[in-house]
């Protein structure tokens, strides 16, 4: 077995033979069905890949033994001809904000460094029920607050395309886990772009569904009215299947409505579509040139393929980031109140009184960015400021959603960049939170309006070879349309 693994890595790195990492669920499962590979072998390859790329700092914890046990058990069932789930043999990573019974989950924070969840997130349980194998939990920005994966208690994760650069965030570890072939698909979460932006920075598809499509039960909350579980993968078909299995009502999440779940994995797309874009962005000097170029060529290809591609205007770009940060920090300030050192999590050893326990545990347990957002959120909800900030931001959110949905009443999709900038060098933006916040402008739109959106990879920058991409956004609950279109136009 040892010998085999080494050979695999050798072949993989030198690309002499077919790559030993299958790019999709379909190719993986047909290889398993054909006996080309066993589940145990697959898991071993991924584990070897993890071991080989520790410098990327992808995982907070690897569930090696458990993944191998599950693989062995599935191989047994496969040999016996017993029933296998739809994700049999599929190796996933989960972001360190998704609860898995008996496993650590820390939200990238010292606050929860030793915390073990007593229960499993609904969405994850649905994947496990289909025989998904979870190989480990991935690094992320603390409590999902960040866009470079630099705000983690465990240090930054690095972009496999250029380890000097960030992978994006907050699901940075999730993105690199797929990018660096340590698993096939990653379960991440998005509050303002935390799936699409790292996916795009790492050359992957990254999808965030309609708010409420997937239960949030077991997803550690940041901004509750924004948070959604999302998926990162090389193939949009895999995302469609993953969504199909995770989506739907849950008796533990009142914000996941009882809407039928279409068979996303079977959906097809036909005929010309109407696609809108914001012409202003293409002229905006603050948007990286290669990103504008990528966006323009994506539009051109679609136009050439016979789709209607038209410019539209959106009047509220100036309000997008402020609205987003007022509302998410307000919700976060309340959501993170439970980390008080009382029932679980970090408790300061020096604290004597109740008040000291609160102050010291929270000051020592939370990182700088989390504290900044808690303070900001506390401020915008304070008596006397509520109307000026929170109340106004809520109204702005409604206006933004109305205008976007107005556009999506006339068009099937909106096409736009994921981020105005390409992956930056690790450490470069750490002292400039406002610059970081402003870079969220194009992704937070979908979260503000609750819309489904997907980042689509579009090759690499010819100069620095960093991945580039763009995103498509659809109207509420139009995942079926969106994903089938992306599968259809996949190159």
């Amino acid at each position, binding site marked *: 077995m040892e010998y085999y693994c080494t050979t695999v890595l050798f072949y993989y790195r030198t690309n002499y033979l077919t790559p030993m990492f299958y790019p999709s669920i379909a190719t993986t499962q047909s290889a398993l069905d054909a006996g080309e590979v066993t589940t145990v072998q697959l898991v071993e390859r991924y584990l070897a890949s993890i071991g080989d790329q520790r410098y990327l700092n992808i995982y907070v914890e690897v569930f090696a033994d458990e993944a191998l046990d599950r693989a062995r058990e599935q191989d047994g069932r496969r040999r016996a001809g017993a029933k296998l789930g739809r994700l049999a043999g599929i190796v996933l990573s989960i972001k360190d904000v998704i609860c898995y019974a008996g496993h650590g989950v820390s939200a990238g924070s010292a606050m929860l460094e030793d915390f073990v*969840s007593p229960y499993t997130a609904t969405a994850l349980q649905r994947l496990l029920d289909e025989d998904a194998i979870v190989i480990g939990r991935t690094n992320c920005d603390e409590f999902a607050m960040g866009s470079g994966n630099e705000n983690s208690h465990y240090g930054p994760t690095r972009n496999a395309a250029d380890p000097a650069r960030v992978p994006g965030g907050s699901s940075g570890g999730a993105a690199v886990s797929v990018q660096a072939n340590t698993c096939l698909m990653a379960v991440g979460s998005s509050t303002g772009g935390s799936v699409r932006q790292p996916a795009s920075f790492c050359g992957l598809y990254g999808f965030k569904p309609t708010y409420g499509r997937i239960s949030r039960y077991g997803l550690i909350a940041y901004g509750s009215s924004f948070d959604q579980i999302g998926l990162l993968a090389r193939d949009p078909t895999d995302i469609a299947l993953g969504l199909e299995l995770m989506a739907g009502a849950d008796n533990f999440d009142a914000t996941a409505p009882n809407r039928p779940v279409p068979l996303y994995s079977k959906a097809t797309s036909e005929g010309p579509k109407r696609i809108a874009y914001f012409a202003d962005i293409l002229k905006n000097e603050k948007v990286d040139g290669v990103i504008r170029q990528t966006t323009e060529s994506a539009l051109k290809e679609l136009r050439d393929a016979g789709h209607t591609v038209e410019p539209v205007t959106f009047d509220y770009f100036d309000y997008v980031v402020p609205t987003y940060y007022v509302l998410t920090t307000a919700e976060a300030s309340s959501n993170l109140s439970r980390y008080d050192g009382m*029932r679980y999590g970090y408790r300061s050893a020096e604290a004597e009184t109740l008040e000291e326990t609160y102050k010291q545990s929270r000051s020592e347990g939370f990182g700088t960015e989390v504290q900044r957002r808690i303070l900001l959120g506390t401020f915008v909800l304070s008596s006397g400021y509520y109307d000026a900030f929170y109340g106004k931001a809520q109204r702005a959110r409604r206006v933004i959603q109305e205008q976007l949905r107005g556009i999506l009443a006339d068009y099937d999709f909106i096409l736009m960049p994921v981020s105005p900038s390409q992956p930056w060098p690790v450490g470069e933006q750490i002292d400039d939170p406002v610059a970081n916040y402003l870079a969220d402008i194009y992704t937070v739109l979908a979260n503000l309006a609750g819309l489904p959106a997907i980042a689509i990879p579009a090759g690499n920058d010819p100069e620095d070879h960093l991945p580039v991409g763009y995103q498509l956004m659809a109207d509420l609950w139009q995942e079926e349309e969106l994903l089938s279109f992306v599968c259809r136009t996949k190159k």
Partner: protein
Amino acid sequence: MSYETTIGLETHVQLATVSKAFCGDRNEFGAEPNRHISEVSLGYPGTLPFLNERQVEFAVRLGLALGSKINRRSTFDRKNYFYADLPKGYQITQDDRPICVGGALPIRTASQQYAAGAPTVRVQLHHIHMEEDAGKSIHAAGEAFSRVDLNRAGTPLLEVVTEPDLHSAEEVDAFMSGMRQLVRWLEISDGNMEEGSLRCDVNVSVRKQGQAELGTRCEIKNMNSMRFARRAIAYEVDRQIALLEKGESVMQQTRQFDPQSGTTSALREKENAHDYRYFPDPDLPPVVLTDAYVQTLRDTLGILPWEAYTELLALGLDPDDAALIGEEKHHYLSFVRYARASPAVPELAKLWVNRVLPFLQQRELGLEPEQFATLQTLIADGEVSAANAASRLLTDLLENPGDVRQRAVDLGLIQNTDTDFLKHIAREVIGANPDKANAYRKGKKGLIGFFMGEVMKKSGGSAEPKETQALLRGLLEETT
């Protein structure tokens, strides 16, 4: 100078749902600490609230009973503060848009209750909202730490907020008693003040008679005993008047009552009040009620306590009997069933209050309305004395239901009105006690009781008293 007291109440009613407000933990008082808990009630990372629909139903029922407007769309908010017994660091409540608005509770104060036809006071309500309770912190003397019991964390509460519409401790008492009766009547809470199922915060202010605006108020927190509430209000009113008399002013404060000293003391000033940073809870969609839903609950509401009380008065009951029988819905319902068959309802009420209600504390009633009617007829016809019927016959029948008349015969309770038989005994008694007979004749008329007793004894209690007395008087006079 005379002063007027104004009081507003915030009453907390703990609901008797099977599970907690937002998760499946059992909602039950008295378990060992930290038994009825789960990752949701402990506020574990990633957990979410999911509304218990019974809480909504109970809130609507209470609102309908009190004549409140039922908001077809109400919302949940978060009230943020840190405390060891508040696992999430916020309490889920309804701040902006509560489920019920307005309404009133009719009350009768103790002094009014016993005056027939006394007018009821209607205490106007501001609103009723749903919320979850916190856990319990126990600060035991001599311990360097506090204990926290989270069994109560997340249990469903309704907060009933009155207008400043009460004016005395007596009215507060009547309001709380009325609220206790109503929530038990509706079967939404056990209304047990000792266990904290019903408690209130009391807002007290005083103003000079004739002054237009209300005085500055103080809030006394967490009164869970009516005795303490009365003392706290009395103390607080005196304290505020004394301040005003000295020319000082009342500070707006939150105060607590110390039962040891009988005084209230400041917990915090208004300027140090918590900023709870209320905002809409993003985890809970608005509660939307259809007209059909509200109508169904309205249709199944049944008679309300004050309607039952009025009906009992109309049946001829004394106000105190009506209050006792009408206290609990099942007692009222059972009484009216028996009253329908009864030849004399007010007398039935007496039997009910004295004999049946105490019996019902222990056991079920095995007698049918017709059997009670027979019993009352036996009394009315003089066949069984009222005293014997109430004590011996009814006691026996309650224990062992059976044929009423036969039982009276078996117990030898059918009264003897046979004049010859009674005359014979009476003569014997008088003959055996010549001295007393003489004394009677000389004017010691009180001795009639002695002779009555003797005749009763000899007749085995079967002598009909009225008849016997007349007979004895006649015989005693006769032999003169």
